[in-house]
């Protein structure tokens, strides 16, 4: 191999990365080759000049800004992969439960099967007051239906955490 054109060899020599045997062989070559001697001396001087440089310093404001951004970002919980089957089962359960509740209340089933249920539960004897209670119950159940996605999500997150409650981070 042509030692004179082996740049890696010169670099390794200068950086002290040659074995003892390789080093001895290369030094024998250097003794006889002024071109390589000049090249190695040039590497040494240039490397020394670079080593004498003071690396640029990071502006402190940048560091502070980066820390603040990372802190803010790390507070936002990472999105976890959704278990589709678990999510679907919860969705089906919640939907079925709410549909049953809606049918019982809005469909008047409760009143048909258990006459005077609302009045009995709330101790109301006036039929008009009973109907008002029915209406309020209907509106409430409708509102609940609008919250279904959120309810499903909350139940799902609770199941994922194994029932442990964890407050949402702002």
């Amino acid at each position, binding site marked *: 191999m042509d030692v004179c054109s082996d*740049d*890696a060899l*010169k*670099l*390794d020599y200068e950086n002290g990365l040659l074995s003892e045997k390789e080093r001895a062989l290369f030094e024998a070559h250097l003794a006889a080759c002024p071109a390589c001697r000049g*090249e190695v001396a*040039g*590497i040494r*001087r*240039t*490397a*020394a*000049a*670079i*080593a*004498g*440089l*003071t*690396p*640029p*310093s*990071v*502006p402190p404001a*940048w*560091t502070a*800004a*980066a*820390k603040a*951004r*990372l*802190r803010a*970002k*790390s507070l936002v919980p*990472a999105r976890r992969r959704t278990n589709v089957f678990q999510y679907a089962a919860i969705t089906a359960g919640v939907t079925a439960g709410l549909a049953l509740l809606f049918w019982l209340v809005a469909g008047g089933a409760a009143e048909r099967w258990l006459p005077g249920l609302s009045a009995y539960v709330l101790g109301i004897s006036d039929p008009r007051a009973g109907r008002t209670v029915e209406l309020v119950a209907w509106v409430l159940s409708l509102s609940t239906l609008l919250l279904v996605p959120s309810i499903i999500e909350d139940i799902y997150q609770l199941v994922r955490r194994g029932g442990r409650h964890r407050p949402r981070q702002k």
Partner: protein
Amino acid sequence: MDTDSLVEDHKDLVYHLIHRAVRDRTAHEEIFQEVFLNVLESLPRFEGRSKLSTWIASIAVHTCYKFIQKAGRRDRVEAFGDWLEGRPEPGVPSDLQENLERSDARRRLEGHLGELPPKHALPVTLFYFEGMSYQEIAEVLEIPMGTVKSHLFRGLRELRKKIEGEDHGRLLG
């Protein structure tokens, strides 16, 4: 991992790489923030097969490349390899302060280092400033170890020529 320590421990490494890879100084701060956000986002995927600093350096280099590519500041950027092979993109015009600083010998050397193309400047920075091994530099730049040595050697030779050409080698002592 504590995010403050993450920034504190690697800020110099990230900054030096940005400093060498991107000449447009007005973009440095944005890239600096972006690198750490990318690191935080990718941290769950870090498998510890290399040193954390090597992995972060790799993210920094890629972020620099993506920034330059996205900003369209270089017409010729088509691939990561091309970028590493290419010359540094045109920087912002030097201001008065910069000119004054350049009168200092070390500043001139710093200037010459900044003029090197990324393929030479990055190995020089990683080897001499960050103390990385050839193997680590190869991982960061995604090039073979032999190429790292070759680029490092050529970077030094190019730098030497620039210095000798400008002030007859006085900088080299």
